[in-house]
């Protein structure tokens, strides 16, 4: 028993390090529904965004990087017009803090694992934690 308990964390670390993320189907389906309703119009069906207007979601540091920053983009919107891979995007993203923790977790997990992306899921707990600390 002791062996198994020791073995589990090792397994998890390896799992993350090799980036072989699997997300359950139900989460992806829920995430896709949220994406279709609130995100697709701007970020497009292929996550490609709109040149000069709406940033792409394909393999960008914003999507694949810090969970906290990504959750904050949903909660606070984005109007920084920073360069992403040499391009500037001029449209405003409104805050989407009306979405529930579950919806945000689902949609972020979905975009982190669609459009050629692969990254660890975001949980409702992650969103709850960040929301409580985001003004």
């Amino acid at each position, binding site marked *: 028993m002791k062996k198994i308990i020791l073995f589990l964390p090792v397994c998890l670390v390896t799992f993350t390090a090799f980036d072989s993320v699997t997300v359950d189907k139900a989460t992806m389906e829920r995430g896709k529904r949220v994406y279709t309703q609130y995100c697709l119009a701007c970020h497009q069906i*292929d996550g490609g965004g*709109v040149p000069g207007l709406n940033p792409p979601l394909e393999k960008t540091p914003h999507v694949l990087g810090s969970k906290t920053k990504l959750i904050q983009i949903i909660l606070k919107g984005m109007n920084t017009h920073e360069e992403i891979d040499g391009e500037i995007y*001029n449209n*405003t993203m409104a805050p989407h803090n009306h979405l529930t923790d579950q919806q945000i977790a689902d949609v972020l997990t979905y975009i982190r694992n669609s459009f050629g992306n692969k990254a660890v899921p975001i949980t409702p707990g992650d969103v709850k934690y960040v929301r409580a600390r985001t003004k």
Partner: protein
Amino acid sequence: MRKYFFTPLLLISAILINPKSDFSFELKGKTNLHVENAGLKLPAGFSASALADSVGRARHIVVTKKGALYIKLSKLVNGKGILYAKDTDADGKIDEIKSFGNYIGTGITIKDGYLYASSNDEVFRYALDENEELIKPDAPEKIISGLINGRQHNTKSLVLDDKGNIYVNVGSPSNSCQEIDRGVGSNGKDPCPILDSAGGIWQFSADKLNQSYKDGVRYATGLRNVMGLDWNYQINELFVIQHGRDQLDMFPEHFTAQQNAVIPAEEMFMIKKGVNCGWPYCYFDVQQNKKVLAPEYGGDGKKTTRCEGVEQPVVAFPAHAAPNALLFYTGNMFPGKYKNGAFVAFHGSWNRSPEKQEGFYVAFVPFKGGKPSGPWEIFADGFAGVETVMSPKQAMHRPCGLAQGPDGALYVSDDVKGTIYKIVYKNN
């Protein structure tokens, strides 16, 4: 790795070998240059060629009386934002490019011995010689500054009349003047406070230096964003095309995504001094063929309060197609039906999901006596290079600027790859 190592060396040697150019452009010809009609579909008797295919983010363009081009760029190339491009050996390909102007932007035009060009908050002019070449490329006169640059809709398109006035678009820095821009269910600010300095066309003197808002006149208001504008010399009036509103479905109790995709028109207006075209309170519904109240101001898709007396469009085009340039054709090369009619470059939509995207073509509207005399039609299609565009990134080329050559040819710029198209008519 080796390939990348040599690229800078090749560029440097190209610049050294070619002393005529400020910097070298590789005119690759890999996409379009050698394809029939440069990949475009045109009416019978017309043909097209690509003069260049990689000049940068080519926005508005103007052709000189000698057939050279000034091209405004929305992204600097080697630190410069305007190109002067020539086909010196008349083989139908641009072979000499000079560059100047350290600012990005969209607007560029020529009038009475001056080249006018805009950044996203200023307008400059450059004196031209008898060949319409620059006399002092590094010493423009700044004629207007301090225009609102809200990032959204920040391009400053330009046109002049015959009386020494310049007309400049100042787009609204939002979609519909909401409390929270593009926020689901967010109401409109009432009155919309930005209309004193944006969301309209401003008129300034073409030859007065250092003007700001206080020196100009708000010539027209209620225009969300205008990129295409031109002076109609037949009737001496200004015409503009508005980029209509996005995202009606931010009010899901009244509109579905599918309704948003097709309802709010791209409107062409004739602009008399002082007109109000309705934004943000009203938009034109292509299905009901009338102006209706925007949902941000209590509209439900049917109410028309606040929209009586608002300027009506002379043409309503498909929703979201993004009219980026307008040109009244005054040349003699094209058949008679085109004379004094309007060409419109549609950059192509992004806000039409779940429908396919719309636009990516040059349209034509016949005019008689300064009024549209028939339905609009697609004139040049095929820029996108794919049959159906679902996501704008799939479009290989997007038409953005229009210009008429001294021989009557029509030039079209593309701001994706930087292709410059020339469309001609052969009477045979």
